């Protein structure tokens, strides 16, 4: 049993990192994740961790140093957000392709322009095809729990992929909440020692990594990378279950909330899922069959599991906190719609683009979504597929 302590999201990330005690952190702090790096740097300065902390001059260099340290055989963690993640972009692909096991916590924040420091999911969604696993936490506790699990998932021998631990900027990163902090020893035991596969510092067995790879083999290498996401899915499930057995809080690919008989269902990522839970409870008291499907693992994307979980749904709303410019939808909608189509589910799905640049999500707006879903379920045909929630027009 851990100890309950009030803590900000960023502080919780730093606390998880202290307990995990990574070999290397190479960071360039950015709002709203700054405090996580700042607090962790103090742990380093105070000798509370053995981490080699590398102060770099940009996020591009931060990720480059993280990849090198990971491939050299180290356990590597980092924290960033928004423009910082965007500046890492080309290195993100390399991190995944070279099968590094970097764990990057991302305090989700809007991308410029215009300049905005608040929450949306544009940053991580921009990296969705880079090959990283992406877990989304709802609150401070989940950000902490996911940081610990991310290390285990990334380093599993059948996975060996980098993981992003996404938590909503300001909404979670700066929210002071009660966190169940586990014992240092218990966390260290859960993550275990890192056993790198073919570390570059094993000088007795030298090999080349990341060389020129043209049309004779690149295609096959991408095929083998493609295969890694199936065991990764299994790893997310198994590590989430093991975490629950050890610490009493279980996790999976998805979190269904009153879904068994739900007819009107909202699909959401991150802290918005918590607000939806409140509304689901209120409307359930009035006898309405409403539910929530929270997606915890966006990468690997649990397409089959989503189609299975939505068995009784008659209308769905996908909450999109990133505008997929030019697609006509947000970024989550096409994935959910494809999952349903591939799973043979004929359910009308409406997309709601909301909360960009930190626009607060109000309870009455979630009520509005359920209210608008009812006629969609009745007719089976939404008149308007993509809607903007809480927008002044």
């Amino acid at each position, binding site marked *: 049993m851990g100890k309950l302590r009030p803590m900000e999201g960023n502080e919780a990330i730093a606390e998880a990192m202290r307990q995990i005690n990574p070999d290397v952190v190479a960071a360039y702090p950015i709002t709203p994740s700054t405090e996580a790096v700042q607090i962790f740097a103090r742990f380093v300065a105070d000798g509370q961790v053995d981490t080699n902390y590398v102060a770099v001059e940009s996020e591009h260099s931060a990720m480059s140093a993280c990849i090198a340290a990971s491939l050299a055989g180290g356990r590597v963690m980092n924290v960033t957000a928004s423009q910082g993640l965007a500046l890492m972009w080309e290195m993100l692909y390399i991190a995944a392709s070279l099968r590094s096991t970097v764990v990057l916590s991302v305090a989700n924040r809007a991308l410029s322009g215009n300049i905005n420091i608040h929450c949306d999911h544009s940053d991580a969604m921009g990296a969705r095809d880079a090959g990283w696993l992406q877990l989304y936490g709802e609150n401070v506790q989940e950000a902490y729990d996911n940081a610990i699990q991310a290390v285990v998932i990334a380093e599993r021998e059948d996975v060996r992929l980098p993981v992003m631990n996404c938590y909503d900027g300001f909404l979670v990163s700066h929210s002071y909440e*009660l966190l169940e902090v586990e014992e240092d020893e218990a966390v260290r035991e859960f993550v275990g020692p890192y056993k790198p596969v073919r570390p570059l510092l094993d000088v007795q067995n030298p090999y080349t990594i990341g060389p020129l790879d043209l049309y004779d083999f690149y295609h096959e290498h991408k095929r083998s990378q493609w295969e890694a996401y199936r065991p990764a899915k299994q790893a997310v499930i198994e590590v989430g279950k093991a975490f629950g057995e050890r610490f009493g809080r279980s996790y999976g690919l998805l979190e269904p909330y009153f879904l068994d008989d739900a007819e009107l269902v909202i699909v959401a990522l991150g802290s918005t899922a918590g*607000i939806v*839970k409140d509304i689901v409870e209120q409307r359930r008291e009035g006898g309405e069959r409403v539910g929530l499907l929270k997606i915890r693992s966006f990468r690997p994307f649990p397409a089959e599991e989503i189609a299975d979980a939505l068995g009784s749904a008659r209308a769905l709303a996908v909450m999109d906190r990133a505008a997929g410019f030019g697609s006509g939808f947000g970024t989550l909608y096409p994935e959910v719609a494809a999952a349903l189509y591939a799973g043979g589910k004929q359910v009308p799905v409406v997309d709601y683009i909301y909360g960009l640049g930190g626009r607060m999500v109000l309870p009455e707006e979630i009520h509005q979504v359920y209210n608008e879903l009812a006629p969609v379920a009745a007719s089976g045909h939404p008149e308007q597929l993509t809607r903007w929630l809480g927008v002044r027009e």
Partner: protein
Amino acid sequence: MAQLVEVRWHGRGGQGAKTAGYILAVAAAEQGKQVQAFPEYGAERRGAPMRSYVRISDAPIRLRCAVRSPEVVIVLDDTLLETEDVTSGLVDGGWVIVNSSASPAEVKSRMGSPNVRVATVDATRISLETIGRNIPNTPMLGALARLRPDLVDLEGAKAAVRATLGGKLSEAVLQSNYQAVDRAYEEVQTE
């Protein structure tokens, strides 16, 4: 206590509204409550109006929006009364506690809302005389403890000040903060 209590702090950047919100949350958590506290950031800078929010509940708190129906509003700077709608959403009979040298009646006359209860305390003077700096946030916790002891009592406020700031402040400065809390508790004026 009702299931969910919301508190809103109005201050200017640098006055400690964010920290005060955290201290209140710590005090409530110590009583076994679920808590949430967060600041509302804009392009924050010293002296600019800002708000921080506290939610206290027996149930898990999952809302993430600004506090809109506070039972208590605490104003760290009475010059904000002219520029900020401090009584916005305040529940009927809710408290507005203002850092001001003026009387509650005078301060109330500057507000448009009749169904609120106004309390004043000169937290600036108290902080200058005890802590030696104009940091009105901890004395306002003393005033709150007087008016809403169900949210935080005097000892709980001081324990939470220690729990939150103990690592950052010397014992002498902590003691002067205790004095500030005590004096505001004694000196707060109601109508």
